[in-house]
């Protein structure tokens, strides 16, 4: 009886799916036909952060160049590294690693040198963003956007006067925080809260940090790197340590949300475009990078994802509203006080990884 019903049920779903499939194939063919015209110049496989690259910009690039772009997304540098390493060589052409990860990818020989002959738009990049310590001379990377792991607070819901990472450990915030699902960011923040270095390497100090994390554990309701603004907007979380531009987006929806750069100095990041060593579409990758450094295109990105931008001419297009918003364009002193994540030796990194497991158990 059961089996017969199961068969019947599956048969019907089969029939429906086939019908739906046929309808879809029609649409798919139309797409394929359109795509053929668009795909004349081959493909480009992008691997980028979630909520960091607007679809509209990708569509514009496809239209202008006739290159078919495939976008996949990741949630942390480590996610990206894991996926790139486990895939066959050349599966992705262009990646978007943060500062310390660029250095790591260079060290592992996973990147290809850039051809600046083909990147005339590099001239739009601000001088202070050129020649970064993680890639001296911009041999392998060009800067995209960055920001801070800043503090967001919904002042309607939280009475506490929050000024530092340390304040996020306050017991009154129990079960109310959203933090990035990123072990370097969360452990780094805790290091800072205890007065240590963002990338603390002393095992004795890290043992204390591990205990401190247990206090944070009680407060954290949600770990989310992809769209941490959602929980703030929906009112499921009242405060947290999240990407600065995500705070800007939450502020636009809920005016009582405020951005705070911590007293201890914020966790900073800067993301970059790089090309993988075995990229089969190097030419298209160059075209993409140059396209993304065009001020007009970069301004399109900033409209949707208002992060700290390396493209000085794009900032000029954005105008006052962008420049004066501290969540969109972090103030100079917050940047000066903040610090970037450093690469760690594998034994220390394992310690971090264990602390993270303990935090999430």
């Amino acid at each position, binding site marked *: 009886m059961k089996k017969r*019903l199961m068969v019947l049920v599956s048969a019907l779903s089969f029939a429906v799916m086939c019908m739906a499939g046929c309808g879809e194939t029609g649409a798919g063919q139309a797409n394929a036909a359109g795509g053929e015209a668009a795909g004349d110049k081959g493909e480009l496989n992008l691997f980028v952060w979630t909520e960091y690259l607007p679809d509209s910009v990708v569509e514009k690039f496809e239209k202008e160049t006739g290159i078919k772009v495939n976008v996949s997304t990741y949630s942390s540098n480590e996610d990206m590294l894991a996926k790139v390493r486990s895939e066959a060589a050349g599966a992705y052409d262009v990646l978007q690693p943060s500062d310390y990860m660029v250095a790591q990818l260079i060290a592992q020989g996973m990147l290809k040198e850039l051809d600046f002959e083909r990147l005339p738009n590099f001239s739009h990049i601000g001088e202070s963003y050129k020649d970064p310590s993680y890639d001296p001379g911009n041999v392998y990377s060009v800067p995209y956007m960055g920001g801070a792991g800043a503090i967001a607070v919904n002042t309607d819901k939280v009475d506490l006067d929050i000024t530092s990472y340390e304040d996020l450990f306050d017991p009154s915030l129990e*079960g109310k925080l959203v933090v990035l699902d990123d072990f370097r960011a969360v452990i780094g923040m805790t290091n800072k809260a205890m007065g240590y270095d963002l990338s603390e390497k002393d095992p004795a100090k890290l043992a204390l940090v591990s205990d401190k994390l247990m206090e944070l554990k009680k407060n954290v309701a949600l770990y989310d790197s992809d769209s941490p603004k959602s929980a703030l907007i929906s009112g499921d979380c009242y405060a947290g340590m999240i990407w600065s531009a995500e705070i800007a987006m939450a502020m636009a929806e809920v005016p009582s949300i405020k951005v705070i750069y911590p007293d201890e100095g914020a966790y900073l990041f800067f993301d970059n475009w790089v090309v993988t060593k075995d990229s089969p579409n190097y030419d298209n990758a160059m075209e993409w990078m140059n396209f993304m450094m065009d001020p007009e295109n970069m301004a399109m990105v900033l409209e949707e994802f208002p992060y700290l931008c390396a493209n000085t001419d794009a900032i000029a297009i954005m105008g006052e509203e962008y420049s004066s918003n501290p969540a969109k364009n972090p103030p100079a002193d917050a940047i000066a006080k903040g610090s970037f994540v450093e690469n760690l030796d594998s034994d220390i990194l394992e310690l971090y990884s264990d602390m993270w497991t303990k935090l999430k158990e």
Partner: protein
Amino acid sequence: MSGKTSKHEFRSNTLPALVTVGPVALLLLFLVVAPLILVAVMSFCKTDEYYNVVYDFTAANYGKLLSVDYLKIYARSLLISFTTTLICVLIGYPFAYIIARTKSKKKKLLYMLVIIPFWTNSLIRIYGWRSFLGNSGWLIKILTFLHIADGSVDLLYKTGTTILGMVYCFVPFMVLPLYTAIEKLDGSLLEASSDLGARPLRTLFEVILPLTSGGIFSGCIMVFIPCLGYFFVSNILGGGNTDMIGNLIERQFKSANNWPLGAALSIILILVTLLLVKIYQKLGGDMDSLGV
């Protein structure tokens, strides 16, 4: 076709056996046996500083997995799976009983209604729960309208929410085997029991439950084991702070870049599974009723 060849074919079973069983054997060899052996081997390996797996024997991964932190995660995973299974039995049994023994003409429809939710992608249904339970979801709107709650409900991102999601995913897997078992139950036995003066509760414990225990066992196995590995439910509803064994494994392969540790965790999960299946067989469970 000459009589000779036909006779030859008739006698030799090697070729037909090879043609029929060969593909399955190859499939099992390359896509089941070899991968699992590789995982077992990898669980005894190290990684170098660039996260490459180094084939160099070490038992360190297992040593690590015996630490208190990991034991806590197993304990919690087992507890969550156990609670889920228990709730599934408590909801699923009376439910399956009622729909299996109903005399209504709509019985078939009632059965179908259990299966229909399956046709909507499971992730989007779990996300449906998230948007329903959240502080800007429908639940709070309804409760506020009824003046039961005001402002917020705070139901998301708790262990209980993860369990709710798990129960939601697995209740049908409990109901279906129970339905089959209960439907086979001979109604005259129940009447006999009650005619002989047994109170309903006694009939339940001495007649109904023993006769349907097979359904309960296979339902429990079909809920408990996959529950241990369903990492996305706790990601979506638990907020990432109710890690289970499945989340740990996923993280080693997807972001922590420690495949050997993930492999060791998987081996432990396999051992737990095999142990449970052995117990199930000892209790007289039928392997085939797990399959369909």
